């Protein structure tokens, strides 16, 4: 369990003191994939670096598994970092080392005997599907392959936590998906708790269990992904979760409803059923739903004639579809 307690971080620069984090409180439960989302400059990179103290918070405490990291002596801090792996947007591989030597790097740091280390490296390369690239150099790999090497390297010392700093931001959509799948697999198979920093909604959507929305150096909102996504409270969360497109949608007379599918529904044709049962003409203004494990996720915006709005709402309530009336 990672606890961030009253965490603040400010830098002094030429134009005065700049605050990167203000009074952040966050609990990251074991076994979760915890997303921290925010626009660039919101402070999310600083936040993740405060967890393993790559950056030292100016105030507040970081507690990992009951141990107050912010108070550890240097030597113990270095040991702790071996329990917290980290991957980066730009992969940060050692360019002059082969793939296997990169993965072996953290094992060299803990002075693991060479043979044992090589076995571990082979195991890790298999896990990330790069056994055939063991002797290649980073410059010979694609972005996705580099990130896989970085993941293998981050896992080498069997950490309990892995921090991902914009790990997929430099990758194309297909590669992003495969890397996210790998991260999810690792979370499931190895029980590693993952902290995911991102500015992309789809990342949180596809792998995270929890999410914290950070804005202007503060946590604006946090909770289970299904809850925050369905009912974003803060302005920033709304802005991130419900694309501008939806809010600017106009057209159609009557009541505008935003339906939220958060996987609680089976894949019955709910809109058709509604149209028939309520005898109402439904106008679909926007739909972005996807099927994950046979359950629909996403948003849909519809308009129905004002006089039928109450009937429709009752229908939705009866079928336990979450909705919100948008203006």
């Amino acid at each position, binding site marked *: 369990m990672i606890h961030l307690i009253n965490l603040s971080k400010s830098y002094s620069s030429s134009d005065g003191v700049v605050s990167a984090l203000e009074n952040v409180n966050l609990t990251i439960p074991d076994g979760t994939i915890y997303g921290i989302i925010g626009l660039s400059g919101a402070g999310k990179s600083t936040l993740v670096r405060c967890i393993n103290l790559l950056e030292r918070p100016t105030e507040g405490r970081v507690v990992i598994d009951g141990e107050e990291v912010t108070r550890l002596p240097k030597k113990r801090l270095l040991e702790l970092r071996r329990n917290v792996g980290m991957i980066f947007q730009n992969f940060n591989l050692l360019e002059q080392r082969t793939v296997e030597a990169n993965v072996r790097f953290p094992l060299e740091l803990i002075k693991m005997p060479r043979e044992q280390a090589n076995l571990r490296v082979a195991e890790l390369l298999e896990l990330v599907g790069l056994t055939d690239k063991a002797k290649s150099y980073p410059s010979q790999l694609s972005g996705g392959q580099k990130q896989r090497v970085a993941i293998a390297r981050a896992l080498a*010392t069997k950490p309990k936590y892995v*921090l991902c700093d914009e790990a997929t931001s430099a990758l194309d959509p297909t590669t992003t998906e495969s890397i996210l799948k790998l991260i999810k697999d690792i979370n499931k198979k190895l029980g590693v708790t993952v902290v995911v920093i991102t500015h992309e909604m789809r990342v949180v959507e596809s792998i995270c269990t929890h999410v914290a929305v950070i804005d202007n150096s503060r946590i604006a909102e946090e909770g289970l992904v299904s809850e925050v996504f369905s009912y974003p409270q803060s302005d920033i969360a709304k802005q991130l979760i419900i694309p501008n497109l939806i809010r600017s949608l106009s057209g159609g007379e009557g009541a505008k409803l935003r339906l939220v599918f958060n996987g609680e529904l089976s894949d019955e044709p709910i809109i058709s059923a509604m149209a028939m049962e309520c005898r109402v003409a439904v106008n679909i203004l926007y739909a972005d739903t996807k099927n994950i494990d046979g359950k629909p996720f996403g948003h849909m915006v519809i308009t129905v004639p004002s006089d039928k709005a109450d009937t429709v709402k009752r229908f939705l309530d009866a079928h336990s579809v979450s909705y919100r009336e948008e203006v």
Partner: protein
Amino acid sequence: MSTLFTQLWKNGGFWIGVGETLYMTVASALLAYIIGLPLGIVLVITDKDGLTPIAWLNKTIGILVNVFRSIPFIILMVALIPFSRAILGTSIGNGAMILMLVVASAPYVARMVESSLKEVDRGVIEAARSMGADTFKIIWKVYLPEAKPSLIVGAIISTVTILGYSAMSGTIAGGGLGSIAVTQARPSNAQDVIWLCVALMVIIVQIIQEVGMLIARKVDKRVRSSVKKHRKNNTETLG
């Protein structure tokens, strides 16, 4: 052909000159690196964005380096005569010349090393920190290996510069090609001797340059040459 030329040709004077030039250059370069490499590392590490910022140390070394680098070599030589006497017991000859070359070039080397190390991607350093590497490990396992090709290129440039300075050894009765050209050939106006010395210097510089660059390319694993192979690998297993 001048008599000096025939004389030097017969008694192997040119070869002795080549040997002395190489000896002074290589010995000075090695010693300059023994001093300059650690200084360069300290400059990077103690920098305000470095691993362990120590402002006063960084400033002190920085100023010392700049002071020594701004003194013209010929003046530095004269100034170092008492120092050389104190240390070596003499202020003339190849040994004294090496001492002076080292004092002049170690600060230069420090700056070369500093700039090579600063080329290392900060992200890679951060990754090493995130894995629990301490400062020493980061120097030894990240900075130096990652900067190796650049360090080698720097060493070539430094060595060639030292070779150029070594030509002034004639002023303190040292040897080498420069000394032959300046102290022996110049007074008797033996143009042929001067030009052969020039040619030999050019050849030595060329060899150092070519061999050095070859090594630098060989050790650099950031492959540029095998673009074809690279492409093939990528299409095979994308992502």
